[in-house]
Structures are given as structure tokens and as C-alpha cells.
């Protein structure tokens, strides 16, 4: 039976110059006891639709037309009437559990206030109800946790608290806006299981907004695909994912890295013009291309790193072992993947290899020279030139006050101060074209580019010194899947043509499978297992690896 009915919903953002339609005539129906997935890339309007249902759109956006029928109530009759359904009939969960709880009120205070707003219960009754709720969402020791502040919970536990808050007044519709995006894989699966369980037990209607096709495949019954404010396709999840009708859905599904097999390139359906192929890597003729010798380029021996809390506190108590006795080597020309959940020490290792952190103990050898023991700056510069890094966040890793050409020129002139202006400019143009940006980009500022384009600039900057080792720290985790596919393709091409060695760090197992020849799995600073990619995915030996593989959301699960 149809419970929620969204008819012709449109949301407009009235800007100074123009009106942006964040959602255009969207029609969606949701039944009770069903999870509907709402999927799309950033800017597709999926969150706008979620927020529009309870009329909680950020200024200056507003619902311009359409109706939302919940059961037999038209909850959009006027903008005031919706307020009394919030929390009461409709619960909402946001993406980041770190920021969605008030930091200076205890969990209990927040629960009681919400319950007393909607239900006529005494403080004592509200407290009992809250404790039962906390138990229901899987928080142990709920009686004592009731008086804790949000920061005393871990990320996953906090999201459970958020869910209990969203459900405390027994709403019939739950809107979950990217509820697991900020969480690790193992926590993600727990939270999704919890949502599934509650949907069944409470006969909820659920809208799950996400960009993750794996989550959609494993969790939802039906799925709606959105693109730039339009509803592209809606139907049973299995049908949409296995046999998409619309071009956009097809391209979206094909950009998702498959978890069960390795493919050579990502298929990019949209706007693939075949005329620019092969010869686009213009820097090739400048590149002093080294033949791949069959040797280890990087060798890491018994690496340790601890972070001491404070100069004044005792080290023994507060020091955290971020990296604990890690040893591995990377062969020249190979892609080595490091995977692990947050806090596993993978980024710390990367920063030690590029010499941003000093290891507490242990050695890093690059090309058979121990770079951790180099004292002279001029000696170190030789290695800095050969090792370059690409960072996760394309927004904060480029200086917003510099033009793109200055950003790229900086490493070139640093290592080669005598380069002529003409040569420098040509080199910059070649670099830009190698990462599939136009020459015109050189005179613009970073904020004029999209996330994917910025990551291309980062890659061009990293390539400017002609490095042998490229350290990529989560290079695509801030990007949409289709952009991710493009960037990963680019990295693959560059590696092939330039004989690069890549250290690829990611939490995303499917991506690592596509990118890497060998993989190391990290947990709490310790290396669990190093093995060839295919071997690791097919026959993992370590328990933790098995666990990770079992829990990762698989888009292929739809075929079962």
C-alpha cells in the first residue's frame, strides 16, 4: 500500500541572477515496510528532495509546487502545518554523526526533550522510553550511557544515537540522508543492518539517500535515480541495476568499480569522444623514462610511529602507536595498495614515505638509499623530486590565491631554477593536456574548477617534477563515481605510459582492486596481510581481511 506520495515536487533556489531548479516535478511513492533508495551524484537534488519532504530546505530554497501526501494527510498544505509532523510522523537522519548532535547536552536530555515535545509523557516515562530505545538501537549499558555527552560515543555509536532520536516519537516515515557515508565499512554494515531491522519491526517507510551503489544494491527494495533535479528512473532495485533503461543510469552503474573482478578500464558511457586517445600524454617526450628494473623501489623496514599527546604528559600513557612495526616493499613500476579503516595508520605511512613525518623508529629505503637517515637538505631534495603526493581533498590541497600555472610551476622552478619562461610555459601546457585539461586552465584560479578537475591539477602538479613514485592518499574519495572512474582511468594511463610506481591508499576495497597489483591490509597500525590483489580478494588469509571483504557493500549482490 502506498504510504508516502510525492507529486510533482519542485524546489527552486532563487538566486540574485537566476532561479536554480534543484528538483523538477519529482514523483515518488514509498510503501510501508519498504526501503526506497534515492541515488545520484552530487548536485543531483537527492538531498533536496529528502529535505523538501519535511520542508527543511536551506535558504533561499523553497518548495515551489507539488504536494506530499503521507497516509491520507497532505502535509504540505501550508508551511506551518509541516512543523508538527517533524519528528512525530517523519524522522530524519543526517550524514555526519559527529555534527548532528548538540555537543553540550547529554544524549538523555536530547532524547527526553524530543519525546516530551511530541508525546504527553512525564519525565520519568520519557526517560524509560529513551533507555529502551537506546537498547533497541544496540547501545550497551544504556542506563549509564543515557547521561553521556555525544563526544563520549564513537562514530558508529553516535549514529545509533541519532537513529534513536529520529525514531523516538514513533514516526512512520524515516528519511536517511547518506547515513553511513562518514563511517567505516564495518560500522556501515552494522548501521544498515539496524535500519533494515527497524524497517521490518516497525513497518516503517524508509527513504535512503546515498551515492553508494553498493549500499543501494544490498539494502534497498526499490531505487530512484536522480540527475540534476530530474527523476531519471524509478523501479525495483534489481531491475534498475541489472537492466537500466536510461543512458544516465547505464553510465552510473558502469562507473561503479566492480568488486568481483578486475577490469582494465572503467567504461565511461557519457561524452566519451574517441578522437583523443593514446597520444594525449604530451609530457612523454620530456620524460626521462627509466626502464623498469626488476628491483624494489621502496623498502620499508620495521617502521614505527607514535604520537605523543603532549610534551608534559608521560609518554607511556598517552602515546598512540599510529604505525606499529610495519615492513613491506614496493617493486618498481608496480601499484601497491594500502587499505584500512580510519585510524589504521595508512596516511601516516604515506606521510613518512614522502618525509613529512619522521618515523619514531625503522627505516625507509628508496632506490636502496635510506631516506630516513639523510640529514642534508640538498640530499633530501633529490628524493623529494622523485616522490610526489596527491592528497585526498582537492579543495584544500591547492592554494586558492595562486593561478593554476603558478601552482604547477612551483615544483618545477624549485628543482630547476634555471628553466626559461618559454620552456616553463610549454611544460605547464603539456602537463595540463596530459591530465586532459585545456591550456586555458593555466590562467584560472582553483575555485573555478570542479572537484574532479582540481584533482587533475593536483596530478599535474605531482607529475611536474617527473617523479618515480606517486603517493596517492585517497585520491578519489571526495569525488562522485563517474568522476572517480575518469580519474582512476587517467592514473592508470599515466602509470602505463610513464612507468610510474604508485602507492595507492584507500578505504575503498573495490577501487583498490581495480588499481593495484599488490595490496597491504592495515589495522590499528599493524600490517595484517600483504598479497597479490587477486589472491587477496579470492583467498584472504587474515581474519580481518575476510571480515572487510565480507562487509563491503557489493553491487553484484543484486544478482544473487
Amino acid at each position, binding site marked *: 500500500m502506498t504510504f508516502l506520495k510525492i507529486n510533482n515536487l519542485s524546489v527552486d533556489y532563487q538566486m540574485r541572477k537566476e532561479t536554480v531548479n534543484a528538483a523538477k516535478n519529482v514523483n515518488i511513492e514509498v510503501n510501508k515496510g519498504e526501503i526506497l533508495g534515492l541515488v545520484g551524484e552530487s548536485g543531483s537534488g537527492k538531498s533536496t528532495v529528502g529535505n523538501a519532504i519535511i520542508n527543511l530546505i536551506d535558504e533561499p530554497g523553497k518548495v515551489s509546487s507539488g504536494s506530499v501526501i503521507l497516509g491520507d494527510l497532505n502535509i504540505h498544505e501550508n508551511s506551518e502545518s509541516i512543523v508538527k*509532523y*517533524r519528528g512525530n510522523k517523519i524522522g530524519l537522519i543526517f550524514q555526519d554523526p559527529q555534527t*548532528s*548532535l*548538540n555537543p*553540550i*547536552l547529554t544524549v538523555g536530555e536530547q532524547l527526553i526533550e524530543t519525546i516530551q515535545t511530541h508525546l504527553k509523557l512525564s519525565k520519568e516515562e520519557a526517560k524509560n522510553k529513551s533507555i529502551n530505545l537506546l537498547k533497541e538501537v544496540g547501545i550497551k549499558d544504556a542506563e549509564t550511557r543515557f547521561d553521556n555527552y555525544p563526544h563520549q560515543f564513537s562514530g558508529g555509536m553516535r549514529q545509533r544515537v541519532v537513529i534513536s532520536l*529520529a525514531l523516538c*516519537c514513533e514516526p512512520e516515515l524515516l528519511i536517511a540522508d547518506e547515513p553511513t557515508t562518514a563511517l567505516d565499512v564495518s560500522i556501515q554494515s552494522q548501521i544498515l543492518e539496524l535500519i533494515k531491522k527497524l524497517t521490518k519491526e516497525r513497518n516503517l517507510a524508509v527513504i535512503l539517500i546515498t551515492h553508494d551503489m553498493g549500499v543501494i544494491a544490498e539494502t534497498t527494495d526499490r531505487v530512484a535515480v536522480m540527475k540534476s533535479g530530474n527523476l531519471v528512473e524509478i523501479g525495483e532495485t534489481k531491475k534498475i541495476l541489472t537492466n537500466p533503461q536510461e543512458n544516465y543510469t547505464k553510465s552510473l552503474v558502469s562507473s561503479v568499480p566492480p568488486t568481483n573482478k578486475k577490469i582494465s578500464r572503467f567504461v565511461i558511457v557519457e561524452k566519451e569522444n574517441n578522437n583523443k586517445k593514446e597520444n594525449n600524454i604530451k609530457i612523454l617526450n620530456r620524460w626521462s623514462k627509466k626502464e623498469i628494473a626488476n628491483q624494489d623501489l621502496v623498502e620499508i623496514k620495521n617502521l614505527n610511529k607514535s604520537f605523543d599527546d603532549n610534551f608534559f604528559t608521560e609518554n607511556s600513557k*598517552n602515546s598512540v602507536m599510529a604505525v606499529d612495526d610495519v615492513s613491506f616493499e614496493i617493486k618498481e613500476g608496480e601499484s601497491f595498495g594500502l587499505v584500512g579503516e580510519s585510524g589504521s595508520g595508512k596516511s601516516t605511512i604515506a606521510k613518512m614515505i614522502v618525509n613529512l613525518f619522521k618515523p619514531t623508529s625503522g627505516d625507509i629505503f628508496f632506490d636502496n638509499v635510506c631516506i630516513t637517515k639523510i640529514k642534508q637538505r640538498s640530499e633530501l631534495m633529490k628524493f623529494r623530486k622523485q616522490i610526489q603526493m596527491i592528497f585526498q581533498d582537492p579543495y584544500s590541497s591547492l592554494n586558492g590565491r595562486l593561478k593554476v600555472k603558478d601552482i604547477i610551476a612551483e615544483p618545477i622552478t624549485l628543482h630547476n631554477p634555471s628553466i626559461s619562461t618559454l620552456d616553463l610555459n610549454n611544460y605547464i601546457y603539456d602537463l595540463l593536456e596530459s591530465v586532459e585539461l585545456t591550456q586555458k586552465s593555466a590562467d584560472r584560479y582553483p575555485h573555478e574548477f570542479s572537484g574532479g578537475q582540481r584533482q587533475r591539477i593536483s596530478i599535474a602538479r605531482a607529475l611536474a617534477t617527473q617523479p618515480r613514485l606517486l603517493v596517492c592518499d585517497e585520491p578519489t574519495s571526495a569525488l562522485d563515481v563517474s568522476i572517480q572512474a575518469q580519474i582512476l582511468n587517467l592514473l592508470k594511463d599515466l602509470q602505463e605510459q610513464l612507468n610510474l610506481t604508485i602507492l595507492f591508499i584507500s578505504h575503498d576495497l573495490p577501487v583498490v582492486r581495480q588499481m593495484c597489483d599488490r595490496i597491504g591490509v592495515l589495522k590499528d597500525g599493524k600490517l595484517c596481510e600483504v598479497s597479490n590483489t587477486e589472491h587477496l580478494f579470492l583467498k584472504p588469509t587474515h581474519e580481518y581481511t575476510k571480515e572487510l571483504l565480507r562487509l563491503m557493500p557489493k553491487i553484484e549482490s543484486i544478482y544473487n
Partner: protein
Amino acid sequence: MVGEETSDEERAELRETLGLMDPIHVQFSRFIVNASKGEFGISYQLRRPVSELIVERLPATIELVVISALIALITGTLLGVYTGINRKGFLSDFVLAISLLGVSLPTFVIGILFIYLFAVILGILPSFGRGEVIDLGFWTTGFLTVSGLKAIILPSVTLSLFQMTYIIRLVRAEMMEILQTDYIKFARARGISENSIKYKHALKNGLIPVITIAGINIGTLIAFSIITETVFQWPGMGFLFIQAVQFVDIPIMSAYLVFIAFVFVMINFIVDILYYLIDPRIRVKGDTASG
């Protein structure tokens, strides 16, 4: 300390007894030793022990500063919350425009304007002094007489204006930022009433930085009170200090500066404790570190 008719011998003797002929390091260590005992010597100008003078003038300054701090905090917070919530109203624009005046006009100009307006033209408030005071033995207060209360209005408002405008702007910025956060949005999504969201959820979070700034500013209020006390001839420590500067009365100046430094340290200490009590995030850090 000496008159025209004092002979050279007497002058030399006085220098000797005051220890002015000793080498600098001897004088300085003597000052440190005495200061640690609370003795700051004798005022050259008034020929009385400095500690006695300070204790005598202290109540006037403390009363002035406390009243100004209260005015600044209460009105500042109220107006800050109002302008933070109603961003586009006429009253908000008006308050902000006035606050700009408060920040940019120097205290003595405002003080003189107030005197001209309320004492000279309207004639309803006294232009100088503390009015009648009642001596409680350890403290002299102006709060218990009508003229005392009337006298404190102009100086305290003058002194509080700068801090008040500062707090208005700070609270406003905090409120505007916090009302955009996810937890406020989540509270709205749960149907929590607008009043609770604004005054319980948002304001409490917004006051945390205000306490730090306000605490430090109370110290600044005492320092600023020099000007206000001079303009209004307020018989407090600041006025004493200005007179001391004119007569190169070093014992008073050094005693005053040591006292101000002490007040600053104490206020910062209290603020740190308050911070610890108000923000649960700091409290827990302490817990985990100890166990």
C-alpha cells in the same frame, strides 16, 4: 615629599632613608621582597603607605567595573541574540549601526558627550564624583544612597559601551554560525520548538566563546577605567594612578601595575575553570587523562 625650604642636608638624608642612593639591583630586590609581603612603600606625593591608598580607592573602581561588566554582558548578550536571530529587521540594523559608533568612538569622547547631555543640558545626573558613600568599615559603597546610585550611571555606561558592542558582535556572529549547524537542523527535523532551539540549543553553545572573551575583557575594563575615572573624576584607582603619573609617584604606579597584573591572572584562572564547568568536551579530556 619636600618643600621649598628643605635644606640640602635634609634632602640627602631623605634620599638615604628612602634608599634612593642604593644601586639599582639592591633597590629592585628590596622592591620584590617588600611587594611579596604586600608592602609597596610610601607615596612620595601623599606621604601615606601605598597599600592603604589602594585599599581606600579599590571599592570605587570595583563597583564601577562590576556594574559596567554586568551592563555589557547582559545588554550585549540580549542584543546579540536578537540581532543574530532577526538578521534583517530594522531594529537589528539600528543596533548594529550604533554598535559601530561604540567601537569607533573613544571612551573619553563618549564620556564628555554624556556629561554634556545628561549633566549640563538635562541636569538630571551628576557630572563627577561618587556621590554620598556609606562606610562599612572595610568597604565604602555608593549603592546605598540615591546620589551614589545616580553618580554611577554615567561612568558605568560609558565604560561598558565598548565591551558591550564587542559582545553584541561576537554573540551575533556565534548565533548566526550555530543556527546553520547540522545539530540545529537535526533538532528542527525532530520537531523541537523554535524557542528551545534558539535559546536552549543555540544560545548555550554560543556563550562558550563569549565567556572567554568577556573574562579577558573584564581585565581590560579595569585598565580602561583609568580614562573613564579621569573624565568623571571618579575617586578610584585609575584616577589615583593618573595623578601618580603626573607627580612621578613611583610606589603608587608600581603597586597599581602589580595589582592589575594580579587581577588579570586571577580572571583568566576563573575563566578557565568556568570553561571547564560549562563545556563537557573539556571535562572529559581531563577524565581520560587521569584514568
